[in-house]
C-alpha cells in the first residue's frame, strides 16, 4: 500500500531538471494543429498565451460541479464556489508574495486594474497642477487612464524618455520626480521592446520623495518571479490571460493601507456592508472593490494557471525563455535587411523588428501562410512607434512552450517573405 502511494506520487511529479519542453507542449492541446497546412508556430504570446489542459479542466470542473454565486447562499454549492474563489485569491497572494490576501483585488485585466487606480486613488489624490509620471514605453492602457484623469483634474502627464536601446534614461526619469508628482506608473516589462525596467530602483527613488508607484506587470508576471514585498511597489497589475489563465480576469495588488483609504470604484452588490436609501456603508477589503458577481470561473482558472507555472517554476521558465531569446536574436541578426527595435540589456523574450522595404502587415500575412503567428502593428504603443520612427513592427514573443525549432521556422518564414515580396 505504502509503495503504491509513493508510486502514484512519482507519476504526478514533474521532474525538476532538465526543462522538458516536449512534455510541456503535451499540456497545450491547441498547439497540435496545422494552419494553412503547416504546423502552428504560435509566437504571439505577448498578446495572449495559450491555456494548458489543467486550466481548461479546472474551469470545466467548476461549471460541471460547483457553479454558484459567491458570498451569499447558505447552500452547499455557494459554499464551494466561495471557497474556490477565495482559494484563487490566496494563490495569487502567494504568486505575488503579497502580505495579505485582502490586498488582492480581482478585476477584468490589467487595463481595468489601472483604470481602477486612476478613478479612485487618482481622483482623490490628484489635483490641478499635480503630475503623474509614466515612461515612453507604456502600453496605451497605462497612458490613456492617466490622460483622462489629468484632463479632468487639470493635472500634467510627464513622460520619462528612453534611449535608442529602449531603456529608461535614468537621470531624465529622476528629474521628473518632484513635489507635484502624485504617482509614478510604469511598465515592469515593455510589450514591444521586451525591456525589463529597473523597477526596484524606480520604487526606491519615488519613495524617497513619498511618491507611490504603480507597476504594470502584464508582460512581467508570465516571465519572471514577482515579489511585491521585495519590490515595495504600491500597486501591481497583471492579466490572467497572459499568464496561461483565462481571459476576463486580472489582478490589482495594492497595499492595504492605500486600498483602505481609497473610495470604491463601482457601486453594487458585494461591495457594501449595509445599504439604506440614505446611506451605504462600504464593505471591507477586498470586497469594497469587487462590485457585482465576479468572474468566479475565471478566478478558478487563474488559480490553476498559477499552480501550473509555479509547479514548473518561474525561474526555470525565465531561464528557458532567455535561451530561446538569445537563439532568436542570433538567428534574426543574420536575416538580410532585418533591424530589431529595442536592445535593452535586461530583456524579456519579446522581439520587435522591421524588414527593410517591407511593411509588417505584409510580413505577417506571409508568415501566417507558413503557420507562424506573429503580431504586426503598433502593439497599442503608438507613442513608442513614433519614438523609433516606424509606423509599425512585426513582433515575435515567446512562451514556455516554444522551441528552438520554432525559432528556425520563424527565420525560414522570413526568408519566404523575401521570396514572395522581394
Amino acid at each position: 500500500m505504502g509503495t503504491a502511494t509513493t508510486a502514484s506520487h512519482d507519476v504526478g511529479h514533474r521532474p525538476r531538471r532538465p526543462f522538458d519542453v516536449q512534455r510541456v507542449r503535451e499540456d497545450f492541446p491547441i498547439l497540435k494543429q496545422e494552419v494553412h497546412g503547416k504546423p502552428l508556430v504560435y509566437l504571439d504570446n505577448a498578446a495572449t498565451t495559450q491555456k494548458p489542459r489543467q486550466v481548461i479542466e479546472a474551469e470545466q470542473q467548476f461549471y460541471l460541479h460547483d457553479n454558484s454565486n459567491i458570498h451569499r447562499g447558505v447552500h452547499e454549492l455557494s459554499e464551494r464556489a466561495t471557497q474556490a474563489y477565495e482559494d484563487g485569491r490566496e494563490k495569487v497572494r502567494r504568486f505575488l508574495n503579497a502580505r495579505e490576501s485582502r490586498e488582492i483585488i480581482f478585476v477584468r485585466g490589467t487595463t481595468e486594474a489601472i483604470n481602477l487606480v486612476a478613478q479612485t486613488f487618482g481622483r482623490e489624490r490628484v489635483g490641478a497642477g499635480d503630475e503623474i509620471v509614466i515612461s515612453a514605453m507604456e502600453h496605451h492602457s497605462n497612458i490613456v487612464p492617466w490622460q483622462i484623469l489629468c484632463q479632468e483634474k487639470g493635472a500634467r502627464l510627464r513622460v520619462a524618455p528612453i534611449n535608442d536601446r529602449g531603456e529608461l534614461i535614468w537621470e531624465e526619469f529622476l528629474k521628473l520626480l518632484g513635489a507635484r508628482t502624485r504617482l509614478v506608473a510604469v511598465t515592469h516589462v515593455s510589450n514591444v521592446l521586451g525591456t525589463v525596467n529597473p523597477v526596484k530602483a524606480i520604487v526606491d527613488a519615488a519613495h524617497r520623495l513619498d511618491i507611490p508607484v504603480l507597476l504594470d506587470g502584464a508582460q512581467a508576471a508570465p516571465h519572471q518571479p514577482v515579489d511585491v514585498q521585495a519590490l515595495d511597489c504600491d500597486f501591481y497589475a497583471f492579466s490572467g490571460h497572459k499568464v496561461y489563465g483565462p481571459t476576463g480576469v486580472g489582478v490589482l495588488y495594492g497595499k492595504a493601507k492605500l486600498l483602505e483609504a481609497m473610495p470604491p470604484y463601482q457601486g453594487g452588490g458585494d461591495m457594501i456592508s449595509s445599504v439604506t436609501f440614505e446611506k451605504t456603508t462600504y464593505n471591507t477589503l477586498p470586497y469594497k472593490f469587487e462590485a457585482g458577481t465576479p468572474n468566479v470561473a475565471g478566478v478558478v482558472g487563474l488559480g490553476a494557471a498559477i499552480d501550473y507555472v509555479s509547479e514548473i517554476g518561474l525561474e526555470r521558465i525565465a531561464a528557458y525563455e532567455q535561451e530561446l531569446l538569445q537563439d532568436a536574436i542570433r538567428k534574426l541578426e543574420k536575416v538580410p535587411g532585418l533591424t530589431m527595435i529595442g536592445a535593452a540589456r535586461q530583456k524579456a523574450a519579446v522581439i520587435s523588428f522591421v524588414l527593410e522595404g517591407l511593411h509588417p502587415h505584409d510580413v505577417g500575412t506571409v508568415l501566417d501562410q507558413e503557420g507562424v503567428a506573429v503580431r504586426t502593428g503598433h502593439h497599442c504603443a503608438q507613442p513608442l512607434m513614433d519614438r523609433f520612427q516606424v509606423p509599425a513592427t512585426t513582433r515575435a514573443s515567446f512562451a514556455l512552450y516554444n522551441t528552438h525549432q520554432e525559432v528556425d521556422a520563424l527565420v525560414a518564414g522570413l526568408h519566404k517573405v523575401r521570396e514572395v515580396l522581394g
Partner: protein
Amino acid sequence: MSDLRTLYQEVILDHSKRPRNFRLPADSNRQAEGFNPLCGDRITLYLKLDGDRITDLAFQGSGCAISTASASLLTETLRGKTTAEAEELFGKFHDLVTGKAKGTDSLGKLAVFSGVSEFPIRVKCATLAWHTLKSALEGGEKPVSTE
C-alpha cells in the same frame, strides 16, 4: 503559396515598390486623409476636380503593399473619370475584394486585387484609398478611418 501569389501579384508588388502619382500636387482642389489604425496605414489623397470630372490624382503617406498599390492603381485608373464613374467603380471594386462578385470585366487593372477576397483581414488595406477618395469627393474635413 498559390494563395500568396494571388494576393501579391506582380502588378501589386510593382505598384507598392514604385507607387505612381506619389507626390504633393501644386494645384489640387480636394484632399482627404485616410487612416487604418489596425496597421498604421495613413494616406493623403489629392484630387483636381474640374466640374464633375477628376482631371488629376496624387497621394502621399505610408502603408503596406496592398494599401500602397491600391492607392497607386486608384490614381492611375480614375484620371479623366467623372465622380459618378468613380463611385460606380468603388462599388465594383468593393464587391471584388469582399468576394461578392467574381467578374472583373469592367475593372481593368484593378482586377489584380481579386486575391484579397481570400484574406478578409486585408480588405481594409485594399479599400483604404477608396474610402479616402469618397471622403475627398464628399468634401469631408475629418480623416476617414477604416475602424
